């Protein structure tokens, strides 16, 4: 009976115990994405252990150097270790992306639930406000607000949250509209359930799935968005080692050394790629119908 026995290596067992992650890892791109995301998270958590130097430590005599044994990826215009700055930079990417997506998700969910469930004038008002926010290309909306708020980490988080919110409101509203009319919701209502009760215990659990998936897939976009704002000097400010700041400082010294741009550009691209691979594999596992429907 040997031939029908399943291979029983420990990795296989672990995968069988976690069905969703297992299915993601069985896709080659999903597995690559998972490894990159894991590496990113390890950098976020263990940054001080992984980085050789403090991200602000200057070594002016060895500024603008290429990769070496002492400075793995070379140094920037102040002789700071690029590798250490990139490792610490992951914390800024993570620390911006997660809170801003959380803000967008929470605010969008609340507005979408209200619009979809209450309907009428309130629905129209919310839809028009969301339309207005989406009438701006997202980068323009963020720039207009940041121009007045001034650049800072907290402001960037608020602005990204606001810019991304309408997407979530739309998804949640559409889902709520379709579930509101379902027989079991009618039944609950006729049994005397309150609106709040119906919303929280019946509608929310049924509509939140697609929005959470959207949130996972938005993370890489938000990371590049923050880096883009920081690159323009409208996001996180130097000496913070945001990947966008490293790019921008590299751009200012492009004729002296190209290493800062090359490494921070590659880090940014690789991280985004990893999150995208992982997010898409996750989507294919969780909701195959959505495959290929995601917009920019």
């Amino acid at each position, binding site marked *: 009976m040997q031939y029908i026995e399943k291979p029983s290596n420990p990795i296989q067992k672990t995968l069988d115990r976690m069905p969703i992650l297992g299915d993601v890892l069985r896709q080659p791109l999903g597995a690559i994405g998972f490894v990159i995301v894991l590496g990113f998270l390890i950098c976020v958590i263990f940054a001080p252990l992984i980085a050789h130097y403090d991200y602000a430590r200057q070594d002016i005599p060895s500024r603008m150097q290429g990769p070496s044994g002492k400075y793995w990826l070379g140094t920037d215009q102040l002789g700071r270790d690029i590798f250490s700055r990139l490792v610490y930079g992951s914390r800024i990417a993570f620390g911006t992306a997660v809170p801003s997506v959380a803000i967008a998700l929470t605010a969008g969910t609340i507005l979408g639930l209200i619009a979809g469930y209450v309907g009428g004038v309130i629905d129209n008002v919310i839809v028009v406000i969301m339309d207005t926010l989406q009438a701006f290309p*997202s980068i*323009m909306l963020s720039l207009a607000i940041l121009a007045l708020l001034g650049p800072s980490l907290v402001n960037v988080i608020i602005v990204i949250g606001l810019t991304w919110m309408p997407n979530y409101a739309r998804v949640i509203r559409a889902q709520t509209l379709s579930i509101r009319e379902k027989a079991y919701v009618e039944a609950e209502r006729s049994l005397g359930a309150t609106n709040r009760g119906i919303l929280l215990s019946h509608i929310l659990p049924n509509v939140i799935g697609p929005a959470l998936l959207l949130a996972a897939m938005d993370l890489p976009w938000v990371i590049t968005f923050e880096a883009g704002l920081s690159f323009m000097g409208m996001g996180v400010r130097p000496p913070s080692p945001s990947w966008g700041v490293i790019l921008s400082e590299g751009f200012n010294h492009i004729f002296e050394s190209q290493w800062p741009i090359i490494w921070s550009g590659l880090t940014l691209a690789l991280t985004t790629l990893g999150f995208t691979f992982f997010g898409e594999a996750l989507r294919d596992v969780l909701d195959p119908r959505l495959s290929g429907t995601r917009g*920019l």
Partner: protein
Amino acid sequence: MVSYIVKRILMTLLVLLLVIVFLSLLVHIVPGDPATTILGPRATPALIQKLRSSMDLDKPIYVQVGHFLLNIFHGSLGVDAITGAPITKLVSNALPHTLILAVTSFALAILLGIPMGVFSATHPNSLVDRFVAAISISLTTIPSYVAGLFLLIIFAVDLHALPAMGIGRAGDTLDYLRHLILPSIALASTWIGYLARLVRTSLLEVLNETYVRTSRAAGLSERLVRYKYALKNALIPTVAILGVGLGSLMGGAVFVEIIFSRPGMGLLIYNSIQVRNYPMVRAGVFIVAFLFVLANFFADLLYTYLDPRIQLNKRQG
């Protein structure tokens, strides 16, 4: 159909009005005063008051919005707070460069992205399909500013093959085009990958539909079925995102214009933000939003026209 278009136009106008209200409101909600920022800490209160009133900041929102609208009907966008130059002039100098950049990038994305997607979909799961998939997903994830900087390093700084800055000598079309190459590739890269993936998905979907199978069974040539019947329907979703695409390219142009010092709308708005030139920022962002809304509106109309299956009353929700 007519009532749908009228409704859609009214909605578009309402959104544009709200865009103006929002831009005016922003100054009031947000702490800090642009006049004080422009003039610096040592300005006299009288001077600040004068600048505030020249920017309409001392008046209530509805007056500001009213003035802005009235100005637009008179073909004016107000006056630059720093130089005193009419904003319409600055915009009309900058806008063509951005439009040319956006349209070139868009054409590039269509010319490269659609064939890539068609080829993938007609050879599903082949080696080439996987290769194209890897390329297009990588392209979609590389931000335009990273693509721009890498192109700048390779072709301008290291190889000296193409110019890196500006738009070339005035009146020299060939020079202008040479200056357009790197920026438009940088801006297009994301959309090449995105269109390739979109076209692949929708063409694969259409190729599985019954009418395609019927045409094949009826003995029509594979070429005719694929490229005449299937592709036509598969491209409809692409049309739907044309509007968003052109708009987001105009937004993304700001990065590319900074990197390649192109004097377009993005750079104009960016420079105005640096000096808190509030009237210029407001007018500039409004123009970009206006074009974005307009592009979406026309793409939407085109979409409904191309696909009669779309039920208008359903889309109004």
